[in-house]
């Protein structure tokens, strides 16, 4: 058993880290404050090819292996949770098309998504439907050569900048996935502002009032929208969110160590006080533990092991709970400075909590992990 990155993966890690430090970190506070994903950051993600990180080279993507993909999300998450969200939802659309799309859909959409010429977003949640995804209320009906969609989608990450949406709607009572372009008639979007964290995620509420799309925009088969299309997207979503939590926690740790060394109280650095040391120890140990779960998930995904799905649940659960605790301790170590936007810590704390809600809440994870244990052990 070897648990270490390959030389190539280390190269990627160094490249990702340098990019994040240079091209994301300087914008992160502004993105949070203005609630807008800075165009320079999106441009950087496009130019580096990172928007196509999850797609094969055959379609113009980077074709990263699963572990390198995880490390990319870790590093981007270290710099800015909102930017990491872009990688997540954009990738969910591309991977849905790659996995379940027709050859025509792959040829039409994947090169543009891989190059970042267009942005994708995932449209599952609704005003009255979150975890209970089977009961989405958006509908699709057949009309000649078209499907006609009606309904409202809420909390759609990158909804304000996306060009194409993977929309889930009931077709004859069966959840089904469709591609809906933002330019379609009767499709409107409204920004959702005032979020606690991940504030640069360009959230939107989408309204579809008899939006007509061609039948070629069906993804997968009718009725497989949740069971296959959404679940495979969400598997990638959970994987990237889990890694983003590792990066965010790492940012908390690095800031806390630096602060513990420089902040003087009672005539010495606070890092010399044992209660501060205890918090630092708990932070680093819990980060390392969660990171190992992410590595395991990545390895299993790379070899196509069916256990990867539950291991990704486990990694996402552990990482998101961990980062909430770590960010809380980072605030504690920073004291008053941790509560003010002169330091990034309060942003980390707000961003951290969002990870326990998205891609399956902590409680949904607890239910599913336990249910699987009871069924299989």
């Amino acid at each position, binding site marked *: 058993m070897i648990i270490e990155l390959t030389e190539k993966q280390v190269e990627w890690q160094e490249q990702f880290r340098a990019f994040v430090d240079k091209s994301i970190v300087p914008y992160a506070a502004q993105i949070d404050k203005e609630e807008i994903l800075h165009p320079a950051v999106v441009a950087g993600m496009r130019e580096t090819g990172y928007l196509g990180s999850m797609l094969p080279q055959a379609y113009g993507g980077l074709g990263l292996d699963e572990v390198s993909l995880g490390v990319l999300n870790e590093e981007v998450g270290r710099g800015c949770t909102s930017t990491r969200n872009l990688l997540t939802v954009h990738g969910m659309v591309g991977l849905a098309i790659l996995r*379940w*799309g*027709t050859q025509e859909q792959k040829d039409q959409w994947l090169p543009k998504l891989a190059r970042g010429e267009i942005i994708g977003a995932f449209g599952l949640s609704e005003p009255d439907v979150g975890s209970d995804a089977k009961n989405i209320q958006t509908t699709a009906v057949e009309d000649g050569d078209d499907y006609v969609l009606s309904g409202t989608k809420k909390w759609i990450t990158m909804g304000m900048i996306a060009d194409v949406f993977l929309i889930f709607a009931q077709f004859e009572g069966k959840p089904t996935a469709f591609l809906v372009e933002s330019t379609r008639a009767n499709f409107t979007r409204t920004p959702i502002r005032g979020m606690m964290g991940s504030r640069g995620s360009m959230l939107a509420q989408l309204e579809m009032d008899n939006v007509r799309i061609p039948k070629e925009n069906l993804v*997968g*088969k009718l009725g*497989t929208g*949740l*069971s*296959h299309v959404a*679940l*495979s997207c969400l*598997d990638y979503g959970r994987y990237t969110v889990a890694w983003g939590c590792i990066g965010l926690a790492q940012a908390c740790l690095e800031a806390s160590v630096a602060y513990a060394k420089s902040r003087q109280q009672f005539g010495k650095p606070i890092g010399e006080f044992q209660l501060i040391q205890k918090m630092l120890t708990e932070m680093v140990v819990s980060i390392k533990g969660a990171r190992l779960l992410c590595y395991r998930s990545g390895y299993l995904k790379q*070899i*196509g*092991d*069916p*256990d*990867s*799905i*539950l291991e990704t649940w486990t990694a996402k659960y552990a990482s998101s709970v961990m980062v909430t605790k770590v960010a809380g301790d980072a605030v504690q170590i920073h004291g008053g400075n941790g509560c003010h936007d002169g330091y990034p810590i309060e942003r980390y704390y707000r961003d951290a909590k969002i990870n326990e809600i998205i891609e399956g809440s902590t409680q949904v994870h607890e239910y*599913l992990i336990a249910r*699987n244990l009871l*069924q*299989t052990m």
Partner: protein
Amino acid sequence: MEINAKIRKFLSRFFKKHEIADTDDIFALGFVNSLFAMQLVMFLEKEFGIAVETKDLDFNNFRTIESMIQFVENKQSA
């Protein structure tokens, strides 16, 4: 290991208390959920070197051990 035995071994993780016959409808046994459906697809792809495509997403391909064997053999010979 033959196809039947490999599928049986995989399913035994989910159907511990049931001895499944080759023609038993696994969807009727009540343990099948979306997670299992995804795991089953991944298992069949990895174990037998096949690609489960959109056109294959027909419950009848996965309903019984017998139908899964038939599905795998058809894919392998295609």
